[in-house]
């Protein structure tokens, strides 16, 4: 880009909201006294002993592998029951919800189990997918992109959905009418630029995206990019200088029905 500039502010979005695992400890979201001491002890050990450093790296890699494992495709279901059933099974396995054309929403219960009735009607397309809060990532989208008649996709608060994932959504351009990306920590305005392929989109929710640098300006640009679409985002006045009490009122973004 422009000629070399001073230390780049590496945006460190808060991925792991929990403090499970060593990686969570190292990213002390609210550094209290004892957490900080634990972190610096671990850091001290890792700086001085190769074994501890290797152990931490190994645990880091394991976490990444876990996410990959969750996003594996179910090819045997796809072969036997077709792409719609495979996509539905994938989403239900992640903890999301699926609605087939003409049917009710299917959700897994509190223990993660769901009925396999949908395997009996493999030709019925999936119309709506709610993958909010799931660990779906770039590879996991493989299973979704075969759902050619998907009309509504909700990816709220998905920690691994990022700009690259958005660039993959163009095969759904013919059918997708509603898309919700609210609360995804890794999506920025650069990924939103890829949404112009989705010309049939009528409702887009881009509220509460912490990685977007200019929410108000981004919303205006996205509205210009998708003229037929209703864009729900933050209030455009949020970027202007507001007092703290006014700001807290504005961040309550409208929740789509």
């Amino acid at each position, binding site marked *: *880009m422009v000629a070399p500039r001073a230390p780049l502010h590496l945006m460190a979005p808060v991925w792991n909201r929990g403090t499970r695992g060593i990686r969570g400890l190292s990213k002390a979201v609210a550094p209290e006294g004892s957490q900080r001491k634990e972190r610096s002890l671990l850091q001290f050990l890792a700086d001085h002993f190769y074994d501890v450093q290797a152990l931490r790296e190994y645990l880091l890699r394991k976490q990444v592998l876990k996410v990959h494992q969750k996003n594996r495709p179910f090819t045997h279901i796809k072969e036997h029951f077709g792409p719609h059933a495979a996509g539905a099974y994938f989403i239900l396995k992640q903890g999301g919800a699926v609605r087939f054309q003409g049917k009710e929403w299917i959700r897994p219960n509190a223990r993660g189990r769901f009925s396999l009735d949908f395997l009996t009607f493999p030709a019925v397309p999936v119309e709506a997918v709610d993958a909010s809060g799931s660990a779906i990532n*770039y590879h996991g989208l493989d299973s979704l992109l075969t759902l050619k008649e998907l009309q509504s996709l909700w990816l709220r608060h998905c920690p691994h959905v990022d*700009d690259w994932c958005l660039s993959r959504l163009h095969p759904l351009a013919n059918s997708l009418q509603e898309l919700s990306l609210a609360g995804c920590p890794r999506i920025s305005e650069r990924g939103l630029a890829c949404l112009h392929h989705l010309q049939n989109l009528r409702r887009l929710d881009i509220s509460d995206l912490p990685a977007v640098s200019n929410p108000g300006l*981004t919303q205006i640009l996205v509205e210009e990019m998708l003229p037929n679409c209703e864009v729900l985002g933050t209030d455009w006045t949020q970027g202007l200088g507001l007092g703290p009490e006014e700001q807290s009122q504005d961040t309550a973004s409208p929740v789509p029905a």
Partner: protein
Amino acid sequence: MPFSDWNGKMSEIKKKIQSFLPGGAWTQLHDTSYLPPEHSDVVIVGGGVMGLSVAYWLKRLEKPRGAIRVLVVERDHTYSQASTVLSVGGIRQQFSVPENIQLSLFSFDFLRNINEYLAVVDDPPLDIQFNPSGYLLLASEKGAAVLESNVRVQRQEGAKVCLMSPEQLRNKFPWINPEGVALASYGMEHEGWFDPWSLLQGLRRKAQSMGVLFCQGEVTRFVSSSSHVETPSGEEVTLKRVHEVHVKIDHSLEYQPVECAIVINAAGAWSGQIAELAGVGKGPPGTLQGTKLPVEPRKRYVYLWNCPQGPGLETPFVIDASGAYFRREGLGNNYLGGCSPTEEEEPDPENLEVDHEFFQDKVWPPLAQRVPAFESLKVRSAWAGYYDYNTFDQNGVVGPHPLVVNMYFATGFSGHGLQQAPAVGRAVAEMVLHGNFQTINLRPFLFNRFHLGEKVQEHNII
């Protein structure tokens, strides 16, 4: 009182103790921490994205862990003239040579998973500010057939590129004037642009954490030994082996001879000079010994302008049929662009001064014709950078030299080095560690082709 300056004395004592604990810089005589080590297994000349990528992959693919000592020698620690940071930062698969497409696909994968590859414990994750907006190549009547065959090759290799007619172009991007365009190819995925400085910093940080040593200095001499070998056909060939690299420290006559086993030439625009130092090309012209490394610096200008009525958020990286290109920069209606000059108009690569006339004469007219909104714009700034231009066929040189047996090249990419750096780094590391290319076959890019005359011509060079 004797201990009135207790705090000052304590901090001095602490400094002395820290300096002789392991990891401190304690020498009995004087501080030599600015000098490179006396021995290193691999010396990489050039600390840009290519050199750092080779260093990273060498440390990543080595068996066992910690086996290889790598030293990266970079002359300019501010990277003020390095091609990497002055680059426009695009990555595309729309090439005509299949190997280029594969290199770029892997590099895209690398960038996408950069935080898995380059994660350092306790450091914040990298954000390379990737814009996955794709590339749009426009072709006139003349170039339409070539474009179509290129797209076929690209799709075969796995790139997601689609062809568009002028009508479709007008529908998709209403700000384009498709007059004169016969065909367009649009890369929908795996293409875009990013911030090369973050990639460089990320590679450097990770390489440092893996134990790669960095030195700021200039390579001034190679000490090598020769041996004469007779080929089966009776010719005598001189094989050279580099034993020492002399690294001269800035602003001083002091140099450090670094004994090494392998030298990697990743010096970018100056690779030709480094190769000459090593004795590449010293011989009668027309022979393998007399074949020089045909990489020279070429200056290219990049201009940043503001156009309030310009194309919006969906703007891809547009490359016009005339060779002029532009892309969106940020959210404020700013655009970056430029154009490669013809052979006759090549500017003098002596310095990095910008020629603003070039924008008025050669860049603005074709862009204003293609995007009518650009008729009114205001240039905000401009800079110039070097291409490590391969005058032979504008494609990279990768792999060992046939005669200087322990010098490996990773240079000559003529403007698309940044987007292929991760994959080329891996290829060179495989060549060094295993002796052959294992993942992507880059045999067409070996040095031999300059002597044999086998051009791997890349048509889509901007």
